[in-house]
């Protein structure tokens, strides 16, 4: 029941929120997100004792033998935790802001949360697809309505791009459905043995969908523009959680279902990812827009995660899963700070910034910490995942690992450049008027920083979560055939 509650709470409150305005919407959405978090934590504790009690099955479309089949394993639980932790943080951060049509804004946010949770919980392919799209639509509206001046064409491109990709995946799902004698369940999908040639082309149907979502080079061009144009709260959702949907899709629905296909195209997928890592890192160096810089850095990080998934060994998979969580936390932290800067100064162009460290020490310290976590400094949460991913990639192929590891240098280059341009030097006329972090922002960032250090020092809870059922299933499914 907890599993269903996870989806129902944001869904129902989201719909209610549409009818509210201003403060009511804010408060309700915050309460709702906290309630969801509480449920997620309850699910976590239950997961440790009786994980099987978390699955939920009900009849949905008997004609298709599709079921409302929800369940949790380590991977999905971790992403659920990420989602449920992120939303309160986002809501707290923007609590002082007054969005135009607040009811619709918060309602759409909650609906997208419901969609994403559904994606992570669904064990039925059709259900998965439905939630996959459901998560997209509210985000599309959020970006278009509350975004920058170029938001409409940009988000439209984003929408059509991802929509096209997911439709290809739908074709793949339907095809496999008919091979399973008519079942959408994950168990049926994974216990199927498809011929090599089938797996080979099915792989691309799925991969393109997930690659667009992640995004992996060269399917990434929607992403920087969308991040730049979206309201920052939405960008947090997009980059913190939504991109994980693509990675999750690969781990849940691609690798176990099409092991041979994944094996055949492994090198191609890794190659694309590795190209993306270096490519995005290089471009990030050139950016002067804060949001674009983080966007490209995110492409690089996601590229590594994608490469690690396809490297497909214990270490890389554990690394990816841990990193999914940690990257989500870190990047949301970065966006919060960018949101603060943009709110206070009205610009996100680094050329116009500088010297904030002198004016707003709290903000600066937290930005430095989160940036360092983002470049995977040891004892921050970013390190564990990247270490394991690189290591796993290295076990798979030395040269891919060596080339992609150049990114740790390039990441330092662009992140430090950002810190220097934003924080250091003498404050100028614009930045000297900045004020430091206030209540909600501070609270959210402190939570994030705490998680950065705790998980960086003691990543065991996360590693236990993912090394429990999740990877073993995946790896077993892969090596079993």
């Amino acid at each position, binding site marked *: 029941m907890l599993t269903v509650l996870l989806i129902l709470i944001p869904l129902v409150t989201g719909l209610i929120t549409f009818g509210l305005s201003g403060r009511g919407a804010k408060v309700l959405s915050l309460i709702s997100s906290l309630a969801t978090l509480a449920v997620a934590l309850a699910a976590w504790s239950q997961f440790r004792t009786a994980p099987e009690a978390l699955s939920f099955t009900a009849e949905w*479309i008997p004609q298709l033998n599709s079921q409302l089949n929800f369940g949790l394993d380590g991977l999905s639980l971790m992403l659920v935790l990420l989602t449920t932790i992120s939303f309160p943080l986002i809501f707290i951060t923007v609590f002082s802001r007054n969005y135009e049509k607040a009811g619709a804004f918060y309602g759409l946010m909650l609906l997208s949360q419901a969609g994403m949770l559904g994606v992570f919980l669904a064990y039925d392919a059709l259900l998965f697809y439905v939630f996959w799209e459901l998560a997209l639509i509210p985000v599309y509206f959020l970006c*278009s309505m509350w975004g920058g001046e170029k938001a409409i064409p940009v988000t*439209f491109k984003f929408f059509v791009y991802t929509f096209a990709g997911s*439709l290809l995946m*739908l074709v793949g799902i*339907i095809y496999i459905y008919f091979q399973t004698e008519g079942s959408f369940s994950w168990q049926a999908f994974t216990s199927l043995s498809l011929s090599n040639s089938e797996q080979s082309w099915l792989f691309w149907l799925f991969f393109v969908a997930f690659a667009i979502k992640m995004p992996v080079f060269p399917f990434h061009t929607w992403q920087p523009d969308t991040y730049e144009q979206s309201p920052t709260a939405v960008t947090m959702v997009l980059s913190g959680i939504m991109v994980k949907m693509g990675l999750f899709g690969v781990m849940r629905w691609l690798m176990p279902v099409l092991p041979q296909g994944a094996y055949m195209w492994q090198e191609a997928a890794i190659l694309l990812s590795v190209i993306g890592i270096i490519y995005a890192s290089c471009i990030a160096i050139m950016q002067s827009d804060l949001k674009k810089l983080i966007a490209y850095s995110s492409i690089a990080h996601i590229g590594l995660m994608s490469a690690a998934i396809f490297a497909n060994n214990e270490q890389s998979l554990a690394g990816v899963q841990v990193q999914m969580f940690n990257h989500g936390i870190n990047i949301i932290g970065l966006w919060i700070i960018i949101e603060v800067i943009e709110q206070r100064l009205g610009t996100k162009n680094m050329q116009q910034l500088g010297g904030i460290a002198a004016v707003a020490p709290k903000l600066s310290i937290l930005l430095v910490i989160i940036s360092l976590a983002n470049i995977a400094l040891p004892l921050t949460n970013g390190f564990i995942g990247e270490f394991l991913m690189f290591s796993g990639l290295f076990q798979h192929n030395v040269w891919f690992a060596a080339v992609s590891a150049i990114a740790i240098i390039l990441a330092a280059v662009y992140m430090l450049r950002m810190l220097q341009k934003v924080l250091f030097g003498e404050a100028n006329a614009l930045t000297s008027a900045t004020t430091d972090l206030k209540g909600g922002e501070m609270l959210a960032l402190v939570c994030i920083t705490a998680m950065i250090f705790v998980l960086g020092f003691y990543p065991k809870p996360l590693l236990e979560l993912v090394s429990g059922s999740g990877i073993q299933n995946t790896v077993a499914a892969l090596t079993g055939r």
Partner: protein
Amino acid sequence: MNALITTAVFGIILMFVGLVVKQRQYIKYVAIAGTVLAFIANLLDAQSGYGVLHGMVEVSSFSVLFNAVAIASTALYFLLCGSSFEKVGEDVADYFALIFFILAGIMLTGAYSNLLMLFLAIEIISIPQYILAGADKKNLKSNEASLKYFLMGSFTTGILLMGIALVYGATGTFDIREMGLGTGELSPLALCGITLLGFSLAFKVSAAPFHFWTPDVYDGSPTVFTAFMATIVKAASFIAFMRLFHVSFSGGNVSGHWQLIIAIITAATLIIGNLTAVFQQSVKRMLAYSSIAQAGFMLFAIVSHNEMANQGLILYSAAYSVATIGVFAILLKLNDYTFDGFNGLARRQPLVAVVCAIFLFSLAGIPLTAGFFAKYFVLSAAIQQGDLLWLVIIGVLCAAVSAYYYFRVIIAMYFKPGEADAQGVTPGFKALLVVAAAIVIVLGIFPNLLLQYL
């Protein structure tokens, strides 16, 4: 059969109502009552059992279900658009009568069991449409639509008849179940006949390259009639198409002979419909092209003859009809039919805009709307059929393209500044819109509510 008789009788009744009732706005209610009675009669059909009447009409669960969808859609159409009939011209009662006659023809498309009945059904559907298209007599566009529709329609009637004649020559029967084309070698006569029948029915469902009439006729006709022609009538044509090809022309090696042609037609329809819709400036004309594009998807159900195709086509008919009628109903309330005419509608009429967005989502095939499952079923049918994956890929890519022009309306409504205001939006109208949207969403979550009756 009861439903057929009821609709035909109500057609006649409405002819006379026009003479008796002088307050034209009340005629609508008679028509609505007619649809209600027809719906009840249809339920009685389901009660009184299924069977074939004189080898001509076959009442089955399929026909009853389709009739129910058609009648319900018509009722919705009357409710949402009925008041716009008065704007077209004087003869309101006659328009309603004609629509009831068309409905009688539609009742036949799901039930014919003889090529003669198919021919009659198509003619009963077509001839009143020629008139409805030209109902706005003083308007040259309406004239043009009518003339084009009429000329091309009768031309296609010739093709249809030639097809029927050739099939008859090959089999010696008009009964769709007795042809037995599957056994033995296929006569070239039958092959040509099937192909010609395919062409003529492709014309009726506006599949490329027989689609040319569609945009012009839909654009030129009075909008209120376009709403009917583009939805329920088109769905009925598809039902006729599918029954003929799945019942008579399947089995043995027959289907192999026409499948490629229909597949090519499907691909062409998808591509032309979607591409051309992208460029339109008028929403009405865009909807005309979108109806071609949607026809492309429905053609998947024809290409793949299996159970899923049947289910899919019924679902598609319902989803497509309701959504398109809804959009047309909203369009009818606007002054400006261009995309710019929708600018800022969300601010002036939030509810209408939301409902319109839901309809458009459904047309684009976004999940949790009926349109998603409609597309889902027809695509699965094609995948189940096998060897059609290339077509399915074209289909989904075109679905992505279709998002472009449907979302243009949404973008106009929500994100563009403007002063679009819908005229005469009454609370009742809003309530009906909400009901329609609810249908779309409920069918989008539980498509089995409809399919369980099949």
